[in-house]
């Protein structure tokens, strides 16, 4: 039984009032199974539908068509069972200003029908570096601390399936390390983890399998290692003193003066170098490296590569 199953899921949002009958398709016939024990990454640019998928999974939103289940429990028909198996860390940094950290965790336990949960709450506080904040009011916590509390709140009922929606957005390096160590530990213990993130190096390091979403569709769904293998094997990295001509610009990943071209072999690399020289640009630095997930991501999003067996 898959830990998470999306079967032909679509989601249409009605457009603003006035535009009668018109709607925006946020998810378009998405099917995806995540097996128990996986560490799964859901990637895609803003607006691709990542949060919509997670909202439907968590019951915050309803699919327009299709079925979603958590360990066999339908998220609509059998919502209570599905939610008991699911721990969700929301993307927004939300909190209840009336309570301190321990109260918030006790209350969240109660919603899930867990009584006398203090031993597990203490363990969570300890693991997330919150032990000395147990009696601090939520308002007094820094953003990073609030994020940790959100993680703890998602785990009070020891859910077998954990969903993290961009948990490291705007979070400092130290917390990211703590958080990943903790989540990786839970995954080792058998918890299934579904993660969305903008930090592709995190996804590359942590996720065994990755799905890429673009405009509401799954455009890649593979093991992370296969994705990397199938990608252009090399990246030509140049530091140049001017702007790329119009015919080269769409092929490159540009960061200020640094431009990177994905290349499959030496001939392609030579071709790019020649084109840059021809454009009259002075190259100050040249480097050839192995492709990483970001290169794959750009290739996939640019439509130069599609999912399926791997090769394109």
């Amino acid at each position, binding site marked *: 039984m898959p830990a998470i199953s999306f079967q032909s899921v679509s989601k249409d949002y009605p457009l603003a009032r006035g535009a009668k009958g018109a709607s925006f398709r946020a998810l378009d016939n998405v099917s995806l199974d995540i097996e128990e024990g996986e560490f799964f990454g859901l990637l895609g640019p803003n607006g691709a539908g990542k949060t919509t998928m997670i909202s439907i999974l968590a*019951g*915050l939103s*309803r699919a327009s068509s299709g079925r979603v289940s958590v360990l066999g429990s339908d998220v609509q028909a059998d919502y*209570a069972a599905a939610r008991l198996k699911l721990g969700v860390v*929301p993307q927004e940094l*939300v909190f*209840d200003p009336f309570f301190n950290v321990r109260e918030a965790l006790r209350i*969240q336990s109660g*919603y899930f029908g867990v009584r006398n949960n203090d031993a597990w709450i203490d363990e969570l506080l300890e693991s997330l570096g919150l032990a000395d904040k147990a009696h601090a009011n939520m308002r007094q916590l820094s953003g990073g601390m609030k994020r940790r509390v959100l993680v703890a709140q998602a785990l009070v009922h020891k859910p077998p399936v954990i969903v993290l929606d961009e948990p490291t957005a705007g979070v400092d390096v130290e917390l990211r390390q703590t958080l990943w160590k903790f989540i990786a530990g839970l995954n080792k213990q058998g918890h299934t983890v579904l993660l969305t993130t903008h930090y592709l190096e995190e996804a590359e390091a942590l996720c065994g399998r990755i799905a890429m979403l673009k405009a509401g569709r799954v455009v890649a769904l593979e093991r992370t290692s296969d994705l990397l293998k199938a990608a252009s094997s090399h990246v030509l990295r140049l530091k140049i003193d001017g702007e790329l001509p119009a015919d080269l610009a769409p092929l490159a990943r540009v960061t200020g003066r640094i431009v990177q071209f994905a290349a499959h072999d030496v001939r392609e690399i030579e071709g790019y170098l020649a084109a840059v020289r021809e454009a009259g640009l002075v190259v100050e630095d040249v480097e050839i490296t192995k492709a990483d997930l970001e290169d794959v991501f750009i290739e996939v999003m640019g439509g130069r590569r599609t999912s399926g067996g791997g090769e394109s």
Partner: protein
Amino acid sequence: MNGWQTLLYKEVLRFWKVSFQTIAAPVLTAVLYLLIFGHVLENRVKVYDSISYTAFLVPGLVMMSVLQNAFANSSSSLIQSKIMGNLVFLLLAPLSHWAWYFAYVGSSVLRGLVVGGGVFLVTVWFADLSAEAPLWIVVFGVLGAALLGSLGLIAGLWAEKFDQLAAFQNFLIMPMTFLSGVFYSIHSLPAFWQGVSHLNPFFYMIDGFRYGFFGVSDVSPWLSLMIVGLALLAAAGVALNLLRTGYKIRS
């Protein structure tokens, strides 16, 4: 505690933690009404024979406080959670619409009764008051608070900003409570306005509640009970349906 009991506990804790604002302030307001209106009108207005105006006023003020605070509790809690975004903690939990309803309305009833009790304890010293039929006092206190708690739940779900909620409160709840016979007997009104008052469900709550103290009222307490009971059933039905379908909280 199971899910709905935890939510009830959380909702009670929420108003208890800010009790200056949620309990003490409305008690003080009611006492000021009593002092001012009682002083000005004591010897000018005769409502029922043998009952002083101040004594007449006390149950009305108690019930008005019960109703307004029951409404304020569920509506302000919901809109705050919606605007702060922390409603998500509830939305992620395996709570049924019944659990939401009983927790939000239960805490509203409790706050209404606590404030009403406070108003009673302070104002009763100013009036010679007896309880002719105490069961009616309890019945109308609880049903009225539950009705307004349910209306607050509906308003809190519907409103998207504080402004809309304030409009609901100031243009609907406030006029209906003030025009329900808290400060006067509707028999003192011209026939037309008496008729209008009979269309106001708040009138029956105040009138039935007052019957519990004096054993006299403008209409029979059984009629009031029926109307308040039906209004509560209707409001509860609407509120439960909105919660079940996730109106404005689940997209």
